[in-house]
């Protein structure tokens, strides 16, 4: 697997919601290699460890990639202080993306996103032909990218924890209704671990192929340090596999939540 490590220019910066930023970076060599579900490992100026952030958009014609992140601590705060025109140091693209190519063409794909797990599902949805999005947010003020999902999806279901927009509750209720229709070929999901566990349980029950993107505290980002492992059941035994290199996308059946 090939990746690059260099400084690239930020050509777009937007605030999507409180503490949530969208950066567009000109990096043709990365855009060429990148696939949906992969991530970039970003150097937060002044910090020892990089921050892994999912790719939200890939534009090979423009030679750009886009990522969306939330300020979680001092490191992401330092990244958020970077501006259009500044250089950003990235190792990218990293990890294995969603296997959109193996989704059956005659069936529907459901992309499921929760909170800051929503952004990588946008590029994933773009790479599927018949696709429905099920997106969960805390509240009205936390909703991001909904309009962009509407331009690439046949249908977008939104739910919020407090019911301020769409359905009240978590993604499992709308996901269950979609699965009940019986025409779903694959589910791709990213979000909080508890949500992913619930999604995995549902897709298992319905016998639908499902991949989930995991998150873990990361060191090198390229597989060398073995710092970011997840518990995976593979070949009849439990293994600790690297989220950065063996993932971040895993078959939901294999993940021990």
């Amino acid at each position, binding site marked *: *697997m*090939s*990746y*690059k*490590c260099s400084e690239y220019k930020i050509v777009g910066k937007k605030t999507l919601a409180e503490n949530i930023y969208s950066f567009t970076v000109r990096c043709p060599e990365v855009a060429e290699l990148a696939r949906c579900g992969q991530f970039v490992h970003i*150097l937060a100026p002044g*910090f*020892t*460890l*990089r921050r892994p952030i999912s790719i939200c958009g890939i534009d090979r014609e423009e030679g750009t990639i886009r990522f969306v992140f939330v300020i979680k601590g001092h*490191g992401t705060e330092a990244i958020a202080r970077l501006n259009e025109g500044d250089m950003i*140091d990235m*190792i990218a693209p990293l990890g294995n993306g969603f296997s959109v190519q193996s989704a059956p063409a005659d069936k529907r794909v459901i992309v499921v996103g929760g909170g800051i797990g929503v952004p990588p599902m946008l590029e994933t949805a773009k790479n599927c032909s018949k696709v429905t999005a099920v997106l969960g947010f805390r509240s009205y003020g936390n909703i991001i990218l909904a309009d962009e999902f509407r331009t690439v999806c046949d249908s977008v279901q939104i739910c919020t924890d407090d019911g301020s927009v769409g359905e009240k509750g978590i993604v499992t209720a709308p996901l269950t209704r979609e699965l009940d229709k019986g025409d779903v070929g694959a589910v791709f999901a990213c979000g909080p671990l508890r949500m992913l566990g619930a999604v995995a349980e549902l897709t298992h029950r319905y016998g639908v192929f499902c991949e989930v993107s995991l998150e*873990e*505290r*990361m*060191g*090198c*980002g*390229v*597989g*060398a*340090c*073995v*710092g*970011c*492992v*997840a*518990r995976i059941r593979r070949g009849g035994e439990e*293994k*600790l596999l690297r989220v950065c*290199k063996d993932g971040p996308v895993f078959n939901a059946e294999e993940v021990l939540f």
Partner: protein
Amino acid sequence: MSRDLSVKVAGVTFPNPVIAASGTYGFGEDYTPLYPLNRLGGISCKGTTICEKAGNLPPRIAETTAGMLNSVGLQNPGVDVFIGKYLPELKKNGNVIIANLAGATIDDYREAAEKLDATDVDMIELNISCPNVKQGGATWGTTCDGAASVTKAVRAATKKPVMVKLTPNVTSVTEIAKAVEAEGADCISLINTLLGMRIDINTRRPVLHNNVGGFSGPAIFPVAVRMVWQVANAVNIDVVGMGGITTWEDAVEMMMAGAKAVQMGTAIFTDPYSPLKVIDGLEKYMERNNIGSLSEIVGTVQPW
């Protein structure tokens, strides 16, 4: 004009003094997309054990001011896989390869050292200082008797140069250093990580699942310089210095403290190119100061 940056440690010639530190560089293959591995002075491979080890549960990583904690717990595929799968790849292109060896018992060390003796690894680094495993690792490296007994067993099991990697988590690192020298260690590397801890104030849980872990990165550099200086003055064998080296200036400082070569680890996570930048900086430093061989600066600190 390009300078000769080569250094000799325990009879092994490294093309330059910058070695990737064990546990931070895997078996090299993860960094080949960026540059040929033979641009490094050498690679100390991920710590290997006689049998496969699953390692500790996550989270295994925590950031600190100017550093990080890790508690990987020696996850590795075992020495046979290292020898059969990774070593042949690593030995291509003239890479100088150090096998890092850890164990729970003396027999583990001896058996794995015998296997490594039959390979073309250039050196064996004895890990008697891993803070992240309950059995073995640091339990050997924190007493003179433990350190001496492992060194003695491995010394008898191999003709390869043996480098013993010391833990800083002891009262007197020089006593341990003298103990391993007396049992036939060819050289010493230090420092392994300092034992540390972080707590998530929201959950009141330690950030690391192992509760505690090894502290590395620029923050520990002064501790490393001090210990390298003390050990280099206490033994007659070669010393390889590590602990927070990030820049070429750090490497020069470590060599002036007494290190013949250096290892870099955490800095690679921040910038995978950092070892190459250090090598480049060392070459320019030699040119500016008309230094013919880096051995000219080793141990040249003039204490007050």
